[in-house]
């Protein structure tokens, strides 16, 4: 019966459009009507009463107690409607396309943009009436674009951006050389050069390694695409064509991407073999803490883990718990990524600098198409993305808000990242499903590249041309993986 009514409704709506607007530009009008009817058929504006919303949040938000505060506040506000939001109690990475159709999925979910957007093709999630949200203009287009998708010939917003996730430089302030203000600050801006550009960081790392104390400067597991691909992007490489939307074209070797890969190869030479596999990713926390490494690159959400390790280290040295924590927070600095030399030559003195691009992700809320209460779910999303909740989220989790008002209010790292996003230096992870095929070939390439720094006789990547052809192989592998077996 319900289905029938809906059909009638849809038919009536389009009929009304056809008869009513014959004189105006019909094509345009019809399109907007299609969009409106999709959103209209989902959201009628009336809150469902006495419903339970199962919300899938990320683990850190639950762990740090933010999620409880969020649902408590929401449940208080919507008490009169009997709407209750609860924890979906599922794996944060669970796949709605698997669970939803059989009734086991959450109503509202918080995931990264690439996860959420893969639900669009099967219409597993509902579009969001984004333009009618009061803070629509507060979120930059670059963030909205990650959630924009074309369905049935119209573009929709499929989720609401909440946080920006990207790589940052983490370093130990107390491990800077004592004379950095005189010898390592060429531009006299009171910021050490080694955290401002890769040439200085390379030089500093090299000097640490050569001092023979068993310590290292910058360390990072290089196979990790999330952190290494930025070097390719900075020199013209990209993942998919048409701003990462067209998987028929793969461009990791495009532009001068090989120059960026060469920078990685050079950086590997001042690390040890641990950069080949995932060793540094795992041991970075404790090795930064015990002073073996000076700096690494990772995402801001693991900040607390670094602090925990460093504080433990200070406690071991006899500091009290509070002292240790304060000291850790003072000495561990999170900064934006250093600038790259335009020439790609890390040994060049006074190079011309270009900003480093980095891969990033935008986490956000989406509404499951299997929910019984779309209006209440929308209310929850609106509530959870309000200025107050976003600020609280930032405060408790240290995550970087996608809202400009919140980012400005927080300042610091949040503002840097937000500006990077605005200026296009954060390459948002492609929202197309074909992305799953990118990881393995690219990881293999980076691992091979890192290994090459430690090969003695049979080096593979002795020239940029060879690197370029290596990248071309990767492009081809990705294309093969995506297209040869598709139907």
């Amino acid at each position, binding site marked *: 019966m319900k289905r029938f009514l809906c059909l009638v409704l849809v038919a009536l709506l389009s009929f009304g459009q056809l008869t009513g607007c014959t004189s105006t530009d019909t094509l345009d009008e019809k399109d907007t009507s299609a969009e409106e009817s999709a959103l209209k*058929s989902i959201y009628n504006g009336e809150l469902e009463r006495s419903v339970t919303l199962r919300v899938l949040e990320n683990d850190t938000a639950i762990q740090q107690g933010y999620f409880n505060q969020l649902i408590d506040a929401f449940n208080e506000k919507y008490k009169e409607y009997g709407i209750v939001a609860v924890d979906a109690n599922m794996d944060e990475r669970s796949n709605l396309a698997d669970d939803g159709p059989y009734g086991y999925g959450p109503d509202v979910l918080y995931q990264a943009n690439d996860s959420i957007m893969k639900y669009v093709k*099967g219409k597993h999630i509902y579009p969001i009436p984004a333009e009618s949200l009061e803070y629509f203009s507060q979120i930059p287009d670059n963030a909205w674009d990650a959630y924009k998708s074309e369905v049935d010939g119209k573009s929709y917003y499929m989720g609401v951006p909440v946080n920006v996730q990207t790589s940052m430089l983490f370093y130990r302030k107390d491990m800077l050389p004592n004379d950095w203000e005189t010898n390592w600050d060429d531009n006299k801006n009171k910021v050490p050069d080694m955290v401002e550009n890769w040439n200085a960081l390379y030089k500093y790392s090299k000097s640490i390694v050569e001092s023979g104390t068993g310590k290292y400067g910058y360390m990072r597991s290089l196979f990790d695409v999330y952190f290494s691909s930025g070097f390719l992007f900075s020199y013209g490489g990209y993942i998919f064509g048409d701003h990462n939307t067209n998987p028929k074209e793969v461009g990791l070797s495009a532009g001068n991407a090989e120059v960026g890969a060469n920078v990685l190869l050079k950086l590997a030479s001042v690390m040890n073999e641990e950069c080949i596999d995932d060793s540094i990713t795992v041991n970075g926390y404790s090795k930064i803490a015990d002073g073996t490494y000076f700096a690494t690159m990772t995402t801001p959400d693991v900040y607390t883990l670094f602090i925990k390790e460093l504080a433990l280290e200070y406690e071991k040295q006899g500091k009290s718990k509070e002292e240790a924590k304060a000291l850790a927070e003072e000495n561990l600095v999170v900064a934006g990524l250093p600038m790259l030399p335009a020439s790609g030559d890390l040994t060049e003195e006074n190079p011309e600098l270009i900003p480093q691009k980095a891969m990033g992700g935008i986490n956000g809320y989406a509404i499951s198409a299997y929910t019984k209460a779309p209006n209440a779910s929308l209310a929850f999303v609106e509530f959870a993305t309000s200025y107050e909740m976003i600020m609280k989220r930032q405060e408790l989790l240290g995550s970087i808000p996608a809202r400009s008002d919140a980012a400005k209010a927080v300042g610091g790292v949040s503002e840097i990242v937000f500006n990077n996003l605005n200026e296009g230096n954060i390459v948002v992870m492609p929202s197309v499903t074909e992305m799953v095929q990118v990881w393995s070939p690219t990881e293999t390439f980076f691992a091979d590249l890192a290994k090459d720094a430690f090969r003695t006789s049979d080096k593979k990547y002795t020239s940029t041309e060879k690197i370029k052809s290596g990248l071309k192989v990767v492009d081809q592998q990705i294309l093969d993986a995506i297209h040869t077996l598709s139907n």
Partner: protein
Amino acid sequence: MNMFSQKIEKLIFFKKNAGKNVKASICVMGLGQLMYGQIGKGMLYLTILACGVLYLISRGFTDFVGFFTLGTKEKDAWFGIEGDNSVVMLLMGILFIAAIILFISCYLSNVRDAYETQVVVEKGGKPRTFSEDVRKLLDDKFYKVTLSLPIIGVFVFSILPIVFMIAVAFTNYGGNIVPPKLVDWVGFNNFIQIATLSQFAPTFGKILNWNLLWAVSSTFLNYFAGLGLALLLNKKCVRGTIIWRAFPILAYAVPGFITLLGFRFMFSYGGPVNQMIIDMGYKAIGFLDIDAKWMARLIGLSVNAWITVPSIMLLTTGILTNLDMDQLEAARIDGAKRWKQFTKIVLPFVLFSTTPVLIGQFIGNFNNFGIFFFLRGGLYMDGYFLASDTDLLINWLFNLSINNNYYNIGAAISLVIFLITSLISLLVYVKSPSYKEEDVFR
């Protein structure tokens, strides 16, 4: 041909001799039995008939149609349009076919039963009572009782999924075509697609070679190491066998994937093994990295042995308890050397009763997904089409299909692999003593 004509003859004979009660059973299940006064059995058959008809009316027919159409209406959640779920329909269709086969065999057994009763009555006997039937089922036909439960379970959770996957190999299910999109039958398209893929054959050949080598060598290693350990612990001079045996059990008690993750870490560049190597003043060794082809393979082999040997040891220990000690004693008195005792008595005995284990091991190792997935996953090598040089066919299959959601291609490749491997192991099994001469040791 001979058998066929015999069957026809039997059928003609049956047709000539079927009495009215048998004919009643042919018309309505259980009617003949009721007419013979076998109330319990007759009612049972009638109930089966009723259930069958009810199922057919309530959903059986739609399921059957659904099996061919795989859905006609696509779901659109945005406009509240309910649609068909092709995958569920495919599964229900298979279930329907199975149900029909079951129903027909019930029907046939009903007719056969009525006929048997008729023969008994004609010979002057009485129709069996219900309790007599039950008794017969518990004695002569005991196997029917004991096998029914396992067979149902195995059918639903092992056979049905396999039939489903075989069916999927002939559809376009996968990639972008997953529910709510509608799936269609495509015939042999998937197989043609694989066969015409030029990169497919060389990689398949290379991986199959390695996979066979891996399966054979790891099976032998695990089996003989396990057997050797069991025999060692069975020696009379060994004291405190329970304690000795506890060490392998310790390894056995830790879940396999945890062991694998542990070993992966141990052999990584930052792991303890390399740390010791560096402390001794040597260069770190990439045990599992991109260049470590044979090294990684060897580590895989030994780690797999580490995981599997304990269970083989346990098993052979259990089996050795059944070994005929008198025979060994007799051999010893006759002055047979240890080695001879082993090759002439112990080995044939153990081999006989563990050939199925050997085959099971072979299959398990052949399809050992976890070992290289955990130890060295996520690498695509030059010269391989989307695979690495330690990947087994099942890992490759995973890369090609599941990773990508190309279920149809995955199912088609599985079918190809399955045909090859099952043929090999079937040949081995049928030739083995434990199949041919089941009662050597009785």
